[in-house]
């Protein structure tokens, strides 16, 4: 098992803020919009350095999405930001008609996705956004794993023409991706080679997959671990290449089982290379208040869960 280390834990939303700060200096067409959550989205530096390119929209997310769509006409690149729940389910129709169907170059960048939002509870813990966004034709859906990758993704999507949903979170997590690693939309990253089981993880669950890989190695199981930071378009070639070697799969995500990464991987497998699959995800349930650690433990989004599913899916190969 390849060793991954980190010098500090940082939040992915701060990676977004750092990416926006850099875009503010390098991309004069980038405009930021926010719905009364500037501090939570870490936009302080961008706003301080580019006050004329920041649009405060107030608590009016539907209007913010429409304004963003209109801004694209002038060659501007709007980054519409809020919490993941308010940037997806609350404005699904606006995104569908004014952004996706109209093919506008809007970047919807959302923080506080998933259970790790913590104490605010289920009203804010969206676990259905990947499902909604990947169903929209033409929408790119990205869920990076740590600070460095979120920063790189933020910068990369500015140079990509088309609608993007970029999802990140609130808690500090190990920052292990190399700071200079380029971000390629739709290109999965092989973190560890192994022959016994493929683990496809996204977002905060990537680090848990690496922890699971260590635990599996202690039991003599070689796990192939792949970071699926882009859920749509999905890197089918990487998935099929890995499963051809390992013959079984575990997916891991901080999202509902219905409609998430696991569903997307299942579709690729069923259509191309049927193989046993187990999913680590929230099983048709809302979240609740608690600390991020308590919630991830209670809802089974842990390295231990990945290990258990890996051992189970390997048994199904036989």
């Amino acid at each position: 098992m390849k060793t991954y280390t980190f010098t500090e834990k940082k939040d992915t939303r701060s990676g977004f803020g750092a990416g926006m700060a850099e875009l503010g200096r390098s991309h004069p067409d980038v405009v930021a919009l926010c719905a009364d959550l500037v501090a939570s989205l870490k936009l302080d530096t961008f706003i301080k350095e580019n006050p004329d390119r920041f649009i405060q929209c107030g608590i009016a997310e539907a209007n913010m999405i429409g304004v963003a769509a209109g801004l694209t006409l002038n060659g501007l690149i709007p980054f519409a930001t809020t919490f993941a729940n308010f940037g997806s389910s609350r404005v699904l129709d606006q995104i569908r008609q004014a952004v996706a169907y109209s093919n506008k170059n809007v970047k919807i960048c959302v923080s506080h996705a998933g259970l790790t939002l913590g104490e605010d509870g289920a009203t804010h813990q969206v676990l259905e956004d990947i499902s909604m966004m990947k169903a929209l034709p033409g929408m790119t859906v990205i869920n990076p794993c740590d600070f460095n990758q979120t920063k790189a993704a933020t910068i990369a999507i500015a140079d990509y023409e088309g609608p993007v949903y970029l999802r990140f979170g609130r808690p500090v997590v190990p920052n292990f991706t190399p700071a200079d690693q380029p971000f390629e939309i739709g290109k999965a990253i092989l973190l560890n080679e192994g022959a016994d089981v493929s683990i496809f993880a996204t977002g905060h669950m990537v680090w848990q997959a690496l922890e699971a890989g260590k635990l599996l190695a202690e039991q003599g199981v070689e796990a192939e671990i792949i970071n699926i930071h882009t859920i749509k378009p999905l890197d089918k070639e990487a998935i099929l290449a890995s499963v051809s070697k390992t013959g079984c799969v575990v997916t891991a995500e901080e999202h509902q089982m219905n409609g998430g990464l696991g569903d997307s991987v299942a579709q690729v497998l069923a259509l191309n290379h049927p193989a046993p699959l187990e999913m680590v995800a929230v099983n048709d349930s809302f979240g609740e208040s608690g600390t991020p650690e308590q919630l991830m433990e209670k809802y089974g989004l842990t390295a231990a869960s990945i290990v258990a599913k890996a051992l189970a899916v390997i048994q199904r190969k036989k």
Partner: protein
Amino acid sequence: MILKNKRMETSELAKVASQVRRDIVRMVHGVASGHPGGSLGCTDLLVSLYFQAMNLKMDDQGSVVFDMSGSGEDLFFLSNGHISPVLYSVLARRGYFPVSELATFRKLNSRLQGHPATAEHLPGIRIASGSLGQGLSVAAGAAYGKKIRNDPHRVYCLMGDGEQQEGQIWEAAAFIPHRKLDNLIAIIDFNGQQIDGPTDVVLNNRDLGAKYEAFGWTVLHMDGNDLDDVASTLQAAQEAGGQGAPVCIIMKTEMGQGVDFMMHTHKWHGTAPNNEQLTAALAQLEETLGDY
């Protein structure tokens, strides 16, 4: 190259409007679906905008040129996308695409979708609309972009009065004056009708003018079926702009205007005429530019 618009005199607009009304009833009849009522009511406005009031991008020969950015010209957004027949007819008659294409309205493989869309790349359309309440926000973004780019042109947005029941309208209504988007002119088609009946009965909007004024807009009123009043009010709206506040025009219209049996009822909001009704309607509308 952008030339100054060759503006039509108001007296000439009536001929275009009559032809557009013929187009509307023929398009809707041709596919036995669509929304003639609001389209007929808003015909005079759209003809006035596209043939007189708006500065449009043109080539050396004076033909309109379409690009998605819309930089360096005035823009129009149709928020109540169901009255697409009037928009399609006016765009075609203005030269954005062949008039013959009106015959494809709502048919398979057409660029003229039931509700306006960009996916088929129809010149003149910059955003999809149909799900109500979204157009004013998009117009706000376009107006904001023009401010950022120092483009002095204006953005127009037409909405329905029934559409004012959508919550997003009021998010945009607050945003636009707060951000001082005084290059935006919103127009409400105040015909008092919606699918299920009179707007006052379905969900009373109360005093729309007072509401917009309270939100910080300069409010004007006009008779949307009087070409002289439309011309002078749009002129007044242009003059009122640029002073820090956006302008909202409450435009009184008659749904079905120009076809007597389609007027004074909500029945023709989304109903197509049969063969006899088409004949009766066309008898009331002079063919001026030639049917498609």
